[in-house]
């Protein structure tokens, strides 16, 4: 299965901080496919799934942002009642702890993409290898996203 990388940005919790980051991405012509904010009072970590990771990385570094790249799992999720539960239950049975998660819509199939972030992504991939799940690669997300 192919890994999907997201870019995380450290940010003080101040008005205009997100706009400062998205401004850099917009100027660099980067499309944001998914986004999630993990906040802890005075600071937070903003995570982006983008169409051009290298370019986003370069643009944000140049502007002095504190960033980190890490791999996440992108799993196709049926857009029906119980769709998320099927995956969550599987993760539970494999004893995989989810740190962060967010969903993306998918265009042609009325399905969705679930992005999950775990402490040990390599181990999670190994544990889920033989399960009936569809993992999406970066190009696949770009193609299938709604």
């Amino acid at each position, binding site marked *: 299965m192919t890994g999907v990388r997201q870019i*995380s940005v450290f940010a*003080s919790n101040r008005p205009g901080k997100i706009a400062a980051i998205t401004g850099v991405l917009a100027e660099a012509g980067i499309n944001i496919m998914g986004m999630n904010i993990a906040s802890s009072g005075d600071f*937070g970590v903003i995570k982006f799934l983008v169409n051009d990771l290298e370019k986003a990385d370069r643009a944000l570094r140049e502007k002095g942002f*504190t960033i*980190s790249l*890490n791999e996440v799992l992108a799993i196709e999720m049926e857009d029906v009642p119980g769709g998320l539960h099927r995956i969550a239950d599987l993760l539970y049975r494999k004893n995989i702890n989810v740190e962060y998660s967010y969903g993306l819509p998918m265009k042609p199939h009325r399905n969705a993409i679930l992005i999950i972030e775990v402490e040990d992504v390599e181990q999670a991939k190994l544990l889920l290898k033989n399960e009936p799940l569809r993992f999406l690669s970066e190009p696949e997300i770009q193609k299938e996203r709604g």
Partner: protein
Amino acid sequence: MFWQKEIETLSRDKLSALQLERLGRTLARVYERVPFYRKAMDGNGFRPEDLRGLKDITALPFTTREDLRAGYPDGLLAVERTEAVRLHTSSGTTGKPKAIFFSRRDLDQAAELLARCLVMTGTGPGDVLQNMMTYGLFTGALMMHYAAEKVGILVIPSGPGNTERQLDLMRDFGTTVLHITPSYLLYLADYLARAGLDPARDLKLKRAYVGAEPYSEETRRKIESLYGIDIYNSYGLSEMNGPGVAFECAGKQGMHLWEDNFLMEVVDPETGRPRAEGEAGELILTTLNREAMPIIRYRTRDITSVISEPCACGRTHRRITRIAGRADDMFIVRGVNIFPQQVERVLMAVSGVAQNYQIILDSYDQMTVRVEIQREVFDGHVEHLIRLKNLIIDRLRSEIVVRPEVELVEPGSLPTFEGKGKRVIDRRTM
């Protein structure tokens, strides 16, 4: 290595006798020539000829910064203006500056003291000293300049700033010694790292004299390992010649204060009463060997204590401990006295934290410490940042008793300092 071995290793008895003799001369001189001191002595019923022992000095009032300001421009001068050959001023944040005059002999004496310091720490002919302190009304750079020339060291009078050119000078002329402020030295380390330079490999530095701003032992060790050099603490103030009043020897265990030139006392900063030997308090200095502008019992506002045990280096002049803080920098939160240096000490010992910090005081029962995280420790996990933050809070609470708020901020987002750093922002009195 000694510059003036005889005087540097004079027996304690002889040193005390010399101090008493010089104190007597100094008091007689100011009584006769400086109305401010004559009035002070008369007011306390003291005449210079009453002096029997060094302890008798406690009968005299202190000289404060305010007294020096009130005497501006030349009210405390003990010679004719024509006999003074150098003027330095020390600016306060408010009000008039303090003006300090030096005669030709005073300047030569100041250079001798600092020459002792240079030689004591292994600097000598063949060394190249890049003097990155401010030349001008501030004493730091000029005093070092003359002392280094006296010893026979090549001096590069670069002054501070223009980091690119500083680096060129260091490389082109093989600088071995720096005279610099701690905040600029830290800034320079960051600059070198960004330029992809390794000081141990790309420069010839052996040691640095770091002063003019307080910094902690942790900061010293951090800089020493960043550069692979020795850092020697120096203590001085413009009112007392500038740098070289006290200096570390190779042992790096406290700074030898040149007692043939200065008489020291340590007092309670609140009451002015003498502290017991070895106890911390405000350092009080009297010049013993100055012509143009002797100063009696000057309140330095610096907190230190005296180390009376003999030093392995053989010098008999007693040492003072690293300055614990300025009596004026101390702030109070929930009734606890706190020095910024305590906070710095804790932060420097936590890995994952950069060199810059800020203390914000918004109320009398809460302080906030802003800390820059290091770029390299950020791995995208908010839990790891929370863990770092909690670690800092715990360490600070055990050091300063008060539990502070801690804000983690982005690297480079706090102001960096090329000169004197202002770390505490007190909004409580506004």
